[in-house]
Structure formats: C-alpha cells, structure tokens
C-alpha cells in the first residue's frame, strides 16, 4: 500500500480547527435531538417490550444521525470547496491512500457496530419472547422459557387461531372465544399461536412484538401489556387476497374490567365472529368482473363475543 506523502498537506489552521470542532458539536447536538425525536415516530408504548425496543431504536437513530451527518458534511464540503474551475482540465494531487486512515476507519466502525450488537443482544435476552418451537403434538409447556426473567408464569394461556382471513382468540379455562382480544393490564399473558392454513404474522405494533404463526406448529409466545387502550393486531406475513383486511383489535383493560368481560362473555351464545374478508367476498360475488381467482375465506369463527375492529384505536 503506497502511503501518500501527507506531510505536504498544510496543517489545519486554528480557525479551521475551531470551526471543525464547532461543527462536530453541532452534529452531536443534532444527533441527540434526533434520538429524542425517535420516540415520537413510534406508536404508544403498551407492553414491557416497547420501552426496551424504543430505547435501542433511539440509540441507533442518534448514532445513525451522527454518521449520516458526518458523511453528508464531508460531501457538502467537497462540493463547495473542491469544484473544478470551468475549463480546468488538470488533475488533483494524486493521493493514493493512507494505511493509518484505513485502519482507523475499519476499527472504529467495527467497535461501533459490535457495541450496538452487544446492546441489542442484551435487549434480546431481556425480551426472550420466544417459547419452545415444537410441533403441535409435542408442545410442552414445561420447557416454557418465554416472558421475562422477572415475570411469573402467566396464569392464562390464550389460544390464537389465525385463518384466511380472521383471528380467533379462545380462553380455554373459561371456555370463551372471541374475535376481539381482551387482556388484563400489567399481567403476563401467554399465547399459543396456531394457523389453520398458511403462515400469518401475529403483530401488535403498540407492543413492538411480532411472531409468525406457522401451520403445523404451536408456538408459545408471551408478553405483558402495560397500558390500557385499544390497539390493532395486524397480520404481518402475506397471507393471500384479504391479507390487508385481516386485522383485529386488542383491548387492554383493568383486571376488574377484564374479569367482568370474561364473565359476561361466558354467558353469551355462540355467534359468527368478525371476518371482513367474508363480507367483501360476498360483495365481490355480485360483481360482473370480480378480478382474479381467490381462495375463498374461511367461514367466520363461532365466538361468544364478536367485538369490533372498527372503533377508534390508540395505535
């Protein structure tokens, strides 16, 4: 590697150095501000996972702003200061490289990304949302390792059945099923995710959690909601025609309200639950030219409480 004779470069003037330091200070301030802003780009924090994820994202936004700002500053500086004069066809000073710089800009990014990765790994360990991945007939709750270390084992396991295109939630201990998920606030809950047909994604943005629901497997998945409200549960893994309409609401309420809801639900007769796809499929059949072929939607699940998926939601 040929080192350029960077002795030929005039040392930076004191005014230049002051300007450079001031600019770096400005970039640091901007990065810090962006890191604070990052929280505002995300939905409300409604689970124990959310603050951890948001903290990591904010940290990355800060670092990223600084790196991006630095690179763009260099590009802007070059564009302002080092443009060739019109009709100047001459070459610039042939600097071929600088081994010391190469080492610096290999080692510093390496340390930086490793630091981010270690931070993310610790968040990951804290989240530890994933239970054992077992096939359906082997599901073994003894091996349950989900939830947080600090959490006690959830009392209730809610079964989530994903279909083309509806979500069914059942509470086996009280024999209640619904198409609107109700959860008590501040209590760990365990889900058993199963799919009837294709891969779906169990995704609640306000909880910052997502898990693919894979046919042929039962996946244990734990979380703890921390904020009362109404949130969207969205299908996040493309599942066919009505993928976009495959959304349900999650209602997080006080333990008392939750118990009252369960008690009321248990007394209701079974009725068809929510399935926007079924409604749209029916309307579509009336059309002369309905588009291309589609898998017909599964009939709406029979539930005690259909609930709603069209009320205003918090996130």
């Amino acid at each position, binding site marked *: 590697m040929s080192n350029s004779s960077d002795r030929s470069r005039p040392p930076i003037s004191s005014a230049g150095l002051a300007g450079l330091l001031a600019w770096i200070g400005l970039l640091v301030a901007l990065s810090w501000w962006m890191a604070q802003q990052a929280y505002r780009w995300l939905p409300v924090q409604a689970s124990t996972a959310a603050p951890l994820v948001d903290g990591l994202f904010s940290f990355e936004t800060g670092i990223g702003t600084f790196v991006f700002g630095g690179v763009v500053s260099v590009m802007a500086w070059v564009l302002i200061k080092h443009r060739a004069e019109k009709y100047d066809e001459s070459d*610039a000073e042939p600097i071929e490289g600088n081994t010391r710089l190469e080492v610096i800009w290999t080692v510093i990014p390496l340390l930086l990304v490793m630091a981010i990765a270690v931070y993310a790994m610790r968040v990951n360990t804290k989240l530890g949302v994933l239970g054992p991945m077992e096939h359906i007939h082997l599901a073994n709750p003894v091996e349950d390792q989900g939830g947080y270390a600090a959490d006690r084992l959830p009392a209730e396991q809610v079964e989530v059945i994903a279909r083309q295109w509806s979500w069914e939630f059942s509470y086996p201990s009280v024999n209640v099923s619904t198409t609107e998920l109700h959860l008590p606030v501040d209590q760990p809950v365990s889900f058993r995710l199963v799919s009837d047909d294709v*891969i779906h994604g169990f995704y609640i943005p306000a909880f910052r959690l997502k898990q693919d629901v894979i046919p042929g497997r039962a996946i244990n998945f734990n979380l703890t909601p921390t904020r009362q409200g109404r949130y969207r549960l969205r299908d996040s893994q493309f599942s066919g025609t009505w993928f976009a309409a495959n959304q349900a609401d999650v209602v997080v309420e006080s333990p008392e309200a939750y118990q009252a809801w369960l008690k009321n639900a248990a007394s209701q007769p079974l009725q068809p639950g929510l399935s926007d796809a079924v409604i749209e499929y029916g309307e579509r059949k009336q059309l002369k030219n309905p588009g291309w072929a589609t898998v017909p939607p599964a009939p709406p699940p029979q539930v005690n409480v259909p609930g709603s998926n069209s009320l205003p939601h918090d996130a």
Partner: protein
Amino acid sequence: MTSATFPPSPPENTSWSRYFGFNTDAKVIGIQYIVTAFFFFLIGGLLAMIIRGELITPPADLVDRTVYNGIYTMHGTIMLFLFIFPVLNGLNNLLIPTMIGAPDMAFPRLNAVAFWLVPIFGALLIGSFFVPGGPAYSGWWSYPPVSTQNPLGHFINGQGLWITAVALSGVSSIMGAINFVTTILRMRAPGMGFFRMPVYCWTALAAQSLQLIGLPALTGGAVMLLMDLSFGTSFYQPEGGGDPVLYQHFFWFYSHPAVYVIILPVFGIFSELFPVYSRKPLFGYVYVCLASFIIVALGLVVWVHHMFPSGVAQWMRNFFMFSTMLIAVPTGVKVFAWLGTIWRGKLRLTTPMLFCLGGLFNFVFAGITGIMLATVPVDIHVSNTYFVVGHFHYVIYGAAVMGIFAAIYHWFPKFIGRMPYEGLGKLHFLLTFIGANLNFLPMHPLGLMGMPRRVSSYDPEFAFWNVLASLGAFLLGVSIIPFLLNMVSAWVRGPKAPHNPWNAIGLEWLLPSPPPEDNFGEHVPTVISRPYGYGTGEPLVEHQAEIENQLTLEEARA
C-alpha cells in the same frame, strides 16, 4: 509487440438488425441486455404506478385486491429478475472485456444463449397476466403455503409460470456468471495482475461468484416448490409433514446474497467514476478490492436476518445479527474510500458524477436503516413493514439504479459513439433524486407506526405519509421521460463522441468509440501501472502516447 498500430478494422455488421439476432459479440449482447432490461423497467414502473395509485387512499378502491396482489408481486419480480440483473449483466458484457483488454467473453455463444433466455422468461412472466386466475400473487418471495394454494386448480397457472420463469432466470444468471468469472480470471491483458485490474472487474467477479454459490439453492428450492404446487409433493406442506420455513432458508440463502450481486457492481461503478470526475486516484484501491470479497464471505452467512420473526432459535438470531452488523465494516471502508477520493479533488459535476453523488447519499442513508434492521429487537417490530420497503428501495433504487444511470451516461459515448445531452441528463438526475427521496423516505415513518408491507388497504392514520410517497412515485415515473428522450435522441443524432470524452484512464478508453468487434484484436497493450493514475503522470500501458495519437488522428480523419 514492439510497435502499437491499429489494424484496419474489418468491415463489420453495424446495422440495426444485428441487435435482433443471435449475435456473439459481447458489446452487442450488452446493449441487447440493457435495452431489454429497460423495456421491462417501464412495465415494472407502470405496475409501481398502479401500486402507489392504490395506496394514495386508505381503502382498496382502485383495483380488486387479487389484482393488487398480482401487481405488487409482478412489480418485484420484474424489477429484480427482468430489470436489475439483466441491466447489470449488460454492463458486465460491455465493460469486462474492454476493461481487461479481452477480444470477447470466454464463451461467446453461451453468452448469447444467456441473453436470449431473458426475453423468453420475460414473455412467460408477462404472459402469466393472461392465464386464467391471473399471475402469481404471493409476493416475490413466494412463500408457501400461500404460493402453493392455486385457487383455480388449473395445471397451468400464474404461480407455476412464475416459478418456471425464476428457474430459467437462474439458469441464465448461472450461464452469465460462468462466463464473467472465466473471462476475468483467464483473459486479462498482459501485465494486468489482479491488483492492476479496475475495481469494477473486482466487484463483478465478487458478485458473479455469489451467483454461482447461491443460485443452486434458489433453483433447487424453486423446483421443490413447483413439485409441491403441481405434483402434490410435500416438501413445504405441513399437512404432509413438510416444513414451510425450510423454503425460507433456501430462498434467502440466495436472495440475500442477491442484493450484494446487485450492489457490488454498483460499488464498482462508484469506484470507477469518482476518480474520473475528481481527477484523483481511488483512495485505498487495494482495500476497496479486498473489501468486495470480505462482503462476499460475510454476505453468505446473513440470510436468517430476513427470518427473525419466523421463530428461529435465539442463538440464530444473535449470530445472524452479529454477522449482518459486520458487513457494515467493509461497506464502510468503501464509502470512506470514495469520500477520500473526492476529498480535495477537482470535481466536475457532470451527469454521471451527479448520479454517483446522489447514489452515495442515498446509500449511506440506507446503510443507517440497514443497521437498525440488523438488530433483532428493532427488526421484530419493523420487519415486514414499510420500514423495510423504504430501506431496500433506498438501496436498490436510490443507490443501485442511480449508479446504473451514472454508468449509462458515463459509458454511452464509448459504446454508442455519440454523446448524451447534459441538460436532459441533469434534469433526469434532479427528478430522480427528489422523486426517490420523496417516495421512499415517508415509508420509514409508516413502518415505524406499524403499517405492514404488501397491504392493499390500510388504516386512516397512515394516509398522510402514503400520499407523500405516492406523489414521489409519480415524480419518479415522470423522471424516466427525460432519460428516454436523451437516450433515443443521442443515439440517433447526438454529437459524435471522441475516444475519451471524459479524459478517463482505462483500457476501454484506449479503443475507438464505438470499439471494433474484437476490441484490441491482436494488439492488446501491455499494462504497466495501477488503474486510476490521475495526476501521477504514469502511463497505464506501454506506448500509450502512440495509441492516443493514432486514435486522435483517426477521429480527425473521420
């Protein structure tokens, strides 16, 4: 070789008709590839306009949901398999032989076969719009079981045609890769050791090695998918004991490296162009070359980062997070090398340089969001949302396509023999840069708010950013007009190009514009120094002054 004189060029077929036949000249094939790719680019872009038209309002009101799903699937498939790979193969065909002083590719007929497969599987894909049941609708990933559902039950269906086309695309790419790798390894000019080879050839070698390693996995996975779809096997069907996640491993084992296949040559283009338009050598040439192969090695062990929410084990999540983060280091080395190249240079803001600078700007932004996506906890939240869509469109359109435009403007005079128009080029750049950022930046907040990708309708809270993105998309649609206008008019009646309009250093600039059919023929110059000797005053090849004078004389005569 003691004296360098150009042989009288043999009479060549220079008529338009040669582009429509089975021609074995790499330069003809390169142009065939590029023109074909842009034909499909227009179709893919039209589909994108429909997608953004649908998404400008929350309900699914423009096209039926089935149609939307088919369209977004075909947009992705066409843009990748029929635009970006062919256009890069076209650039490889034009640049590799001329840059290393080879008369042609190692296997000219194989080269032509590889090209002619493109219109064939392109016709298959476009034709799938017209089969009963419409085209494939399961996304360009084509995950089973959605992709094996086949609602109509016909044996000939869009999904089956899709798989056949993708497998053929794989065959074509493997043919191309064998050719490019062999050509670079075996056909370099005398004196051109690996560390005298232009970086574009390094990155092409790296990218094509990835093709050779990864494509068999994808092709095998696709064949199994076709068996599941059409012949009732159960490789991926859970009810038959198959595992749908297995497909995801096969798919991403190739399709993640595929993005490096796309971006590495673009790194090569940046490395070629920044020195020319800054009048300085490439900063840290050797490190840039080696970084390409570090990216290859790492690029092969990151595929699971596409599957973090698929229920992979915790150790896998952590391992693949680390490996993905590591890629930032060699990539950073390249970015810093380009900054070092333009630093204290003498910048000439021609159209190719503008596209390079804009592409670098977008690429750095995409790199930042890439690091965010690499970290598992953030990825769990934003995977399969518009954040990812924004990220990869920044990479693919913001960086790769802009790099390709830069390359086209830069080498157009060499291979067509006429100069493109600067004014139209700068307009094209401006519209593209603004359009791309307006289109893809709003996708990031959408993803953070939790809007899943591939939706045909969405909740009203996402409307604002979607309107912005759609406006940006329509601007991008408009941006292609000055480009087409420029290319067509320059090709037909642009000013004649000299052999080295940009005053660039490289073997391809020591050939007439356009080069004769066998490039240097018997008179391949001997390379005596490193590439990018801007400002060093060292000649690149023996007898350089004589060759240049000869070319100038011939131009004066013409």
